[in-house]
């Protein structure tokens, strides 16, 4: 473990910069979909579904359904953008484009490359979280300025989901195999982490199961922050996310090294 951490250096930023350059070169393609995403979600779930749903009790007060799911949708965007960057996008760079191989003939180590990819995945989460947040602030769905704390949380949780994604990237044999983690992991989290309904409406056993899903911690933390309710639970939930990020980062560094260098 010491050896792995020793091999990570500030040079990881070079990989981040490479991805950022590519992102800027195609910024229109990269920028428009995440910007439209919150509008679509809010339209479908908030306005469409919201007509059928009454106010929700949160922290013993009644809030509109739109206000309830808004922060949940921020969390989903953070998860998706981090996870998909280090799965599909990293896999294309690693497997089809041999970008990693090329970088490895420079002073960067494999650990630098993988960690740089994680930082970039987390940055994509941050961008996605930021765009969502701006839209929600615009529609007055979240408290301001306290909800700005969503930004650092986006980056931290971005590391969590990027590093989880990278673990899968280290083991899949072809790109179709990512369907498994998406179907078995991302979709259940999307549905059962308290994004669309309070966890308390679930039977008790299901609630316990839900607290094994990383997204549950993020949804809960972001909802409290966005609605401007500070509690120590937020810190606890963040600690869990940081812990998962740390473990998955170590794991994916080890597995990627094995995959690429044998």
């Amino acid at each position: 473990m010491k050896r792995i951490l020793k091999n990570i250096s500030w040079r990881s930023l070079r990989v981040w910069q490479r991805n950022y350059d590519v992102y800027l070169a195609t910024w229109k393609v990269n920028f428009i979909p995440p910007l439209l995403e919150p509008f679509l979600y809010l339209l479908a779930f908030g306005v469409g579904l919201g007509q059928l749903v009454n106010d929700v009790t949160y922290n013993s007060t009644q809030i509109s359904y739109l206000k309830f799911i808004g922060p949940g949708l921020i969390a989903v965007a953070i998860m998706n953008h981090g996870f998909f960057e280090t799965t599909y996008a990293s896999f294309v760079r690693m497997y089809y484009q041999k970008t990693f191989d090329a970088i490895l003939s420079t002073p960067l180590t494999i650990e630098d490359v993988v960690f740089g990819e994680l930082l970039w995945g987390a940055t994509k989460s941050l961008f996605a979280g930021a765009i969502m947040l701006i839209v929600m602030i615009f529609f007055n769905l979240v408290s301001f300025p306290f909800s700005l704390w969503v930004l650092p949380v986006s980056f931290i949780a971005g590391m969590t989901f990027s590093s989880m994604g990278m673990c899968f990237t280290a083991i899949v044999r072809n790109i179709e195999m990512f369907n498994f983690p998406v179907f078995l992991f991302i979709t259940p989290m999307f549905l059962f982490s308290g994004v669309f309904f309070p966890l308390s409406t679930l039977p008790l056993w299901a609630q316990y199961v839900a607290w094994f899903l990383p997204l549950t911690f993020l949804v809960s933390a972001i909802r409290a922050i966005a609605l401007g309710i500070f509690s120590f639970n937020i810190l606890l939930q963040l600690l869990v996310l940081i812990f998962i990020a740390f473990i998955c980062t170590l794991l994916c560094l080890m597995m990627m090294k094995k995959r690429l260098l044998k």
Partner: protein
Amino acid sequence: MLNNINNKIEMVKASKLAKTFYNIIAVNNVNFSVYKQECFGLLGPNGAGKTTTVRMIYCFLEPSGGELIVLGKNVLKNPREIKSCIGVCPQENNLDPDLTVWDNLRVFARYFDIGRNEARARCEELLHFVGLFNKKDSRIDELSGGMKRRLIIARSLINKPNLLIMDEPTTGLDPQGKHQVWETIMQLKGQGTTFVLTTHYMDEAAHLCDRIVIMDKGDIIMEGRPRELVENNIGSNVIEIYSSDSEIENYMKSKNLKYEKTKTHYYIYVKGGEKELTEICERFGSEICSLRMANLEDVFLKSTGRELRE
């Protein structure tokens, strides 16, 4: 510290170098040295272990046994330092298709921590050097195979390497492209760069390399200067006979000639050969005989056999 043997500085020193993938022995305890300012060639049939060997030199693969010292440093202990002083042209194209020609070089310069202004000057100089300046805003998939190869060479020079590792630099190029690459290599060699080169083209090895080793199934089976290898193993000339007539074989045995037999040909290895040629022509007909100079390909085929490798 670089080892200095007989005033020859050792840029690479491999001692009992080995690499195993699960149960495949790709490189089997090989010993060799590469000296400063020479062009060192690694030849061998498919799967001989050439790529594996050079990958260990540029610290992409870790040796599973033995010791490998590059530029005076151990590949296991100081890969970063080694990689910052060498250039690599891999066997497979790995240019960055997400970036333009110019950005491929610029971003690569950044991996080496070359400052912005210096990088700009360097990219410009290198693109002129390989004749791709007019293509600087093109995307990679708009380049021809030869242009990609030249861009990879330019990229490998971005950090002004002392040691340049080229894995099959001219495979797939047309004669023009091949000669351009050769000229580039000669030019760089003139400027004092050391080369480790792998190739399947014997004319390329004979033309460029000061010293070669022939590998087969992970072992080094021959080592020396191309000229000397030909002279010592083959002789100066070869008589090719397009026939598998056993009469001819009996004749050669009676004359104590060195020869090799394939399904369709006899190859006779001779010093001068004019006398033998006349005799064989008289006996068996002149249409089927020809005399030519011996070359590295003869050495290669003789030492590694004529069978295809799986």
